[in-house]
């Protein structure tokens, strides 16, 4: 029963879904590393991304232009992120830093409830699927769902773009500098609130992208962001809060452990295997694989 084929297929599907989870975790950890706050409404941006994708594919563009819909959905969530930072978070960050993350927690939790209610009010509790007429792709003897392969490749491209922006552009330099010293960048003459806006937009756009990509797989409904958000936080704990490589590696680890658990133990516990990994990490390495206890210089 433990055929090589099954192991390879399980491995591939684990990596593929893990990269999608990593997008979510990267968004959480990126916003945290710049703004030192947790965005608890992350799953709602995922949800909005999936609704945008559904509406664009079902009502406007048609299934052939699914890739264009993904770009537009992601951009839409990015713009929403800019607006949320400008309207809700920037006023908090103008105040002294003492209780900033407490306020940010309240604000983003309120946003979570608000967005979920709006989605329920507008679309009802129904589940939608943008469908996908992408063909099954054969890797050797193994069939892979076209939508999953497309989502995987899109996610890889997004991660590559994210890396290039962060590593090679002036914006990336300003973002990296801000993650290390908010006072330092202000002293250098950088408007730290403008950096926040960009970071929040990028962070939620990663969640929106994940939502749009996974819409055909995990369906579209008001609380569909919940499971991926929980997984995002699991990954952040495993990889270390604020660590970008940690988010990527832990994302793939989580995808693999779920995939193998579902295939070789019991698929009905799929969402629980990750917690075992989280517990193991908390015992062995409480700061996560790549977490730092504190920052210096």
């Amino acid at each position, binding site marked *: 029963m433990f055929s090589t084929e099954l192991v390879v297929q399980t491995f591939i599907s684990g990596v593929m879904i893990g990269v999608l989870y990593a997008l979510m975790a990267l968004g959480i950890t990126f916003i945290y590393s710049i703004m030192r706050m947790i965005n608890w409404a992350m799953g709602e941006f995922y949800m909005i991304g999936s609704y945008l994708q559904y509406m664009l594919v079902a009502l406007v563009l048609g299934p052939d232009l699914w890739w264009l819909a993904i770009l537009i959905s992601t951009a839409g969530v990015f713009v929403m992120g800019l607006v949320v930072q400008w309207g809700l978070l920037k006023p908090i960050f103008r105040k002294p830093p003492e209780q900033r993350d407490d306020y940010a927690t309240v604000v983003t939790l309120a946003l979570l409830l608000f967005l979920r209610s709006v989605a329920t009010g507008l679309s009802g509790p129904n589940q939608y699927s943008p469908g996908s007429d992408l063909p099954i792709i054969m890797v050797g003897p193994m069939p892979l769902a076209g939508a999953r392969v497309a989502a995987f490749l899109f996610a890889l491209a997004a991660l590559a773009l994210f890396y290039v922006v962060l590593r090679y552009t002036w914006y990336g330099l*300003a973002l*990296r500098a801000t993650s*290390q*010293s908010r006072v330092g*960048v202000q002293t*250098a003459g*950088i*408007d*730290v609130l403008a950096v926040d806006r960009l970071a929040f937009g990028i962070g939620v756009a990663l969640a929106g992208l994940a939502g749009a990509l996974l819409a055909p797989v995990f369906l579209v409904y008001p609380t569909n962001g919940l499971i991926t958000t929980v997984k995002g936080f699991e990954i952040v704990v495993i990889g270390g809060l604020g660590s970008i490589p940690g988010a990527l590696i832990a994302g793939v680890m989580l995808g693999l452990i779920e995939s193998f658990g579902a295939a070789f133990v019991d698929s009905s516990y799929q969402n629980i295997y990750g917690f075992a990994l989280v517990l193991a990490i908390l015992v062995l390495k409480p700061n996560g694989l790549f977490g730092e206890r504190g920052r210096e210089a």
Partner: protein
Amino acid sequence: MAPHQKVWALETIGLRKRFGGLLANNDVSLTVDQGEVRGLIGPNGAGKTTLVNLVTGVHAADAGEVKLAGRSLRGCDMHEIARMGLVRSFQVTRLFGSMTVRENLMTAFLARRSPEAGDGEERTESMIRVTTLGHLADTPAKKLSGGQRALLQMACGFMVPSSCYVLDEPFAGINPVIKDAMIDMIVDVNKRTGATFLVVSHEMAVIRRLCPQVTVMMEGRVAAQGTLDEVARLPDVISGYLGKSLE
């Protein structure tokens, strides 16, 4: 005296700041002339760092105001003040720890670049030569020694020409070689660009070399001003700060 006619490079007017029960700055007024290198001395807790934080926008004053070349800085954010040409250093360095020396310098350059200033590569390389940090150019800032960090922080401030520098204890705990290099940089920038400096320090030997005039703060107020030798003879300054007269 006609204080409203002269435009000072840096002027504070009646600055007041209270932290809970502590009146950290109480009616602090001082003026620094264009191109001057002014020393700011006083015992620990006298309010020197608070003054620096008020001047550079880290804290908002409860009362009073700061003027840079005659322009009020009221309501300006830290980054706006930096862009207006008032640059500071911190007693505890605020560098970008995981970024290399070169990236730290580039960030300081790009944050306030002017369109005609080029891409900053040349400026960065020349600053690395001046600071003799060449062998550490690609080392993360958090791996540097305390003195090297202080030197790098000062170099970051000098990456873009500014009209006024406020240095908060730049020499504390720094070895003599790096200290001399830092003093040389300050003198050089001051001579070449005519920039104004306000230097907070406890190191009387350095203050004597750099600063023709010093301001003494005690208990949140300006207690005295004059040459170092003049203020060092005042009984209040001796009893409250120096402990004994200099030399």
